[in-house]
């Protein structure tokens, strides 16, 4: 059998600023990879609808927030739980070499992909020797 998925416990957020909203926040598991044209941030936010995602770039800080819909658990009585649910928040400092006007995002199966295109001057140019 192929390698099994390792169990990851959800990391609860321990923010620098305290929040006024009720409920707990979790820090989503995130991958960041870079291609020639863009930096791609992939964030796991299970239970978050694409309309409940808030992506904000302000003063070079990218904030990703996902709100879960707790309504579906309303009439249910928990009898056993191995994890808790909550909203997701995570912030990243974005390099100035990012074209912040062209950031795009998509959401599939609870995974948010944010593409941060590099600004034109930051894309490497190969110079041919004559």
């Amino acid at each position, binding site marked *: 059998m192929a390698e099994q998925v390792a169990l990851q416990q959800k990391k609860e957020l321990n923010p620098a600023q305290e929040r006024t909203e009720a*409920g707990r926040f979790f820090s989503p598991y*995130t991958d960041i990879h870079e291609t*020639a044209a863009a930096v791609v941030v992939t964030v796991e*936010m299970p239970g978050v609808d694409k309309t409940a995602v808030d992506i904000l770039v302000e003063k070079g800080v990218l904030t990703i927030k996902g709100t879960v819909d707790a309504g579906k658990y309303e009439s249910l*009585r*928990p009898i*056993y739980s*191995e994890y808790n649910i909550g909203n997701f928040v995570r912030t990243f400092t974005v390099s100035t070499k990012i074209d912040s006007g062209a950031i795009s995002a998509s959401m599939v199966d609870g995974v948010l992909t944010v593409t941060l295109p590099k600004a034109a001057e930051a894309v490497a140019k190969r110079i041919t020797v004559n």
Partner: protein
Amino acid sequence: MVIRMRDPFATLASVQRAMDSVMGGDWLGTRTAGGGAYPPVSVFNDGEDFVVVAELAGVRKEDLDVQVRGDTLRIKGKKSVAYEDKASVHRREREAGEFDRTLTLPAQLDAAKVAAEYRDGVLTVRLPRAESERPRTVAINA
């Protein structure tokens, strides 16, 4: 305990409290069988039915296999994390691989009426009890 809606912002907090109170409980106890600790599950009661919820962000619906037999629920599948070619990875926290988990519930299930829904990376399986497990009202003769 029933979670009641007072205002939309309090719902999440009360759900979290309710889930916390049963966190790591021994309700399933030694009943989980089969390999693996992934995916973590939560089990709820909705009247007579069981509702099993698992967070599986990044797993495609086609890669999920849910089976019910007798009193057991099996969730298996695979999760893949792929990058484009020629990408340099700065941060890698997401896990990939296969999983296969079997839960034994404390009642026989009505396999024909089991309904599973997968949305936004959350699998919700509604498991009605088998007819033979439902309480029967006994008529009392005078």
